[in-house]
């Protein structure tokens, strides 16, 4: 295994690893534009130049494989390298427009960060620009992306992404020299369902997100690491929020799950959580809002079944969009308080949707983030599911029903499922629904209890690979909505006189203990916790809480 020294620090790497990869692992910051760990290396930007002992010329760290005994100096320790890198920066800045006040990339811009760096930045321009090269600006390439070709530094990350990752090759450079311009043919709208990643990839403000445009300055955002709850992939992401509103989602790099990408649907999944039709108070079927203590009392009255014979058990259905912790408490409630019960998570036979909602990259047909979690917790041990429940209800065997339901964050609920739920609630005389939104197909519920949506509660989801991932709390739920675990703990207390802990670590410890597949997992060190955002712009950090405490 080759051993390399970078700026005096040693590291052993696998054969074929490049200098920049070794440096990144050591924490030595080598500046770069075109290198991206999930794209093929190109070496066109020349920012990652380093000095290698014994080599006549400076080389690019991103495309030079490490050899054993190599000694490398970055711009931080080599004056010659610093001068070269400063030259590259100067060339780029000559024709770069002074757009910082109006550019969304400010605060997380590689050009800004590199220019402000004391080792290779802060030069005074030697070129008196009389005729700056001007290019086209503010070109909308579809609903996700705005292109400003004047800001482009021609790193080609977007070109490589569009060609290799999406397979569409919608972006390309035209012309030569300092006239090079990034274009989409005839400014056509990008058809790429992963177009949102282009804004993350672009190290400057050439490709920016339309959804986030001018919304907020990035230094006013607080960051919370979490995972997407749009489908069973569970792409690792970071929630950027301010003043209790989610402003955008950006992917975190987890090679085992999602590389550095997230699909556009998942990227916009926060819109449903921010949505206007949130349920914020416990609601009776007549439309009357009640306070929580009354809500819990009503729940107790509705669900108390005197069914000693077991012919009309409590029907319990928890959607696979609930966290493992919520599912655990839900299961406890149903199994401990109701000797006769049926427990399930399956809403429908969705496998016929594989082709329509899945692709070769990240999107999966199952738009529930925790199907495997529900499965591992034994939610489908008996034959059942929504269709069976509906059958029982049609036969008059539904007396009491408890439903923990979250509408999908990607797309709408499937019409047959919505119809089945509506019919079930219509037929069942005593029903308690724990949900996040006021949904028309849940109107038949006798009692609706408002619960927190994704990003408003802490918990874990088990993705389709069986990997348990941590989902964090970023914002507070609206009105009187509470975390599902808290509501279920209240109900457990009402029915069994014992209130379990709702602390996430405690619940996870129980999960780790109960589920064979989770044995040995450490809650604080789940793999998804380790992923971080790449490219690492915004080195001028203002702390994890964002710049302003507001």
């Amino acid at each position, binding site marked *: 295994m080759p051993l390399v020294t970078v700026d005096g620090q040693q590291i052993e790497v696998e054969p074929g690893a490049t200098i920049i990869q070794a440096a990144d692992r050591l924490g030595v910051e080598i500046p770069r534009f075109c290198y991206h760990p999930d794209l093929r290396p190109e070496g066109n930007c020349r920012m990652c130049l380093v000095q290698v002992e014994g080599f006549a010329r400076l080389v690019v760290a991103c495309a030079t494989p490490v050899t054993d005994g190599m000694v490398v100096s970055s711009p931080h320790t080599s004056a010659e390298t610093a001068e070269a890198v400063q030259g590259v920066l100067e060339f780029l800045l000559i024709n770069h427009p002074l757009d910082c006040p109006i550019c969304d990339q400010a605060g997380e811009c590689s050009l800004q960060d590199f220019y402000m760096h004391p080792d290779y930045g802060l030069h005074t321009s030697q070129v008196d620009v009389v005729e700056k090269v001007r290019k086209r600006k503010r070109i909308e390439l579809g609903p996700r992306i705005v292109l400003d070709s004047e800001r482009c530094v021609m790193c080609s990350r977007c070109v490589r992404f569009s*060609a290799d990752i999406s397979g*569409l*090759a*919608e*972006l*390309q*450079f*035209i*012309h*030569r020299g300092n006239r090079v311009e990034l*274009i*989409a*043919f*005839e400014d056509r709208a990008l058809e790429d369902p992963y177009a949102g990643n282009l804004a993350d990839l672009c190290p400057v403000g050439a490709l920016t997100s339309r959804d986030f445009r001018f919304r907020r300055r990035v230094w006013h955002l607080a960051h919370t690491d979490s995972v997407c709850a749009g489908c069973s992939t569970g792409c690792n992401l970071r929630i950027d929020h301010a003043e209790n509103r989610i402003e955008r989602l950006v992917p975190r790099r987890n090679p085992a799950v999602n590389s550095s990408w997230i699909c556009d649907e998942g990227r916009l999944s926060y819109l449903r959580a921010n949505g206007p039709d949130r349920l914020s108070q416990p609601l009776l079927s007549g439309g009357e809002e009640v306070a929580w203590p009354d809500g819990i009392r009503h729940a107790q009255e509705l669900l108390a079944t005197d069914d000693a014979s077991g012919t009309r058990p409590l029907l319990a259905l928890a959607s696979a969009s609930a966290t493992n912790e919520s599912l655990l408490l839900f299961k406890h409630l149903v199994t401990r308080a109701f000797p006769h019960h049926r427990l399930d998570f399956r809403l429908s036979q969705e496998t016929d949707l594989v082709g329509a909602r899945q692709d070769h990259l990240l999107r999966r047909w199952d738009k529930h983030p925790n199907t495997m979690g529900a499965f591992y917790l034994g939610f489908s041990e008996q034959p059942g599911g929504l269709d069976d429940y509906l059958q029982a209800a049609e036969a008059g065997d539904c007396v009491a029903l408890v439903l923990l339901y979250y509408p999908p964050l990607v797309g709408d609920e499937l019409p047959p499922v919505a119809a089945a739920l509506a019919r079930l609630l219509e037929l069942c005389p005593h029903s308690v629904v724990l949900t996040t939104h006021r949904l028309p197909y849940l109107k038949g519920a006798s009692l609706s209890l408002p619960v927190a949506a994704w990003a408003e509660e802490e918990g874990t989801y088990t993705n389709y690979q069986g990997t348990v991932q941590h989902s964090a709390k970023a914002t507070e739920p609206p009105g009187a909505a509470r975390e599902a675990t808290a509501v279920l703990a209240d109900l457990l207390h009402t029915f069994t006189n014992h209130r379990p802990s709702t602390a996430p670590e405690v619940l996870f410890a129980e999960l780790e203990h109960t589920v064979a597949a989770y044995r040995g997992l450490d809650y604080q060190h789940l793999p998804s916790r380790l992923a971080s955002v790449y490219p690492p712009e915004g080195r001028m950090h203002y702390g994890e809480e964002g710049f302003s405490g507001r």
Partner: protein
Amino acid sequence: MRRLSDRALAEIETARREEDSARHALLTALRVVQEERRQVGPDEVVQIAALLSLSPATVEGVARFYDQISEEATGRQVLSLCRGISCQLCGADPLAREVLDNLGIEDGGRTQDGSLTVRLVECIGNCDQAPTGMLDTAFVGPLTSTVLSELLTRWRR
């Protein structure tokens, strides 16, 4: 959209079959279309892209790299005036200015009747005839005011 001629389509198809990859056939395709249509504009890009199973953006990226492949239609004849260092030292700039003013066009522009395009190009390697140029594929030089006006008179006829 004006379809490419059958002859052009056949030539491109041959290139596609013979080359290792579609990208290698792309240069041939661009040359064929430029010769036939005197331009490779959006219409042509779309057709070439379809023939070679490449994205239009990819085709445009290669097409716009070369000055000889033009986006706008060029004249039936192209007068290229060299602006290399030898030619400049021999007075190429004022000559070029004179020609362009006479015709009333800018560098790269086409005369109104569409018959002639004049463009300033980098060194064409004919320095011993400086100031020099090319009329289509034939060198012309050494150029003087007289030679040029003769050329243009002949061309006008």
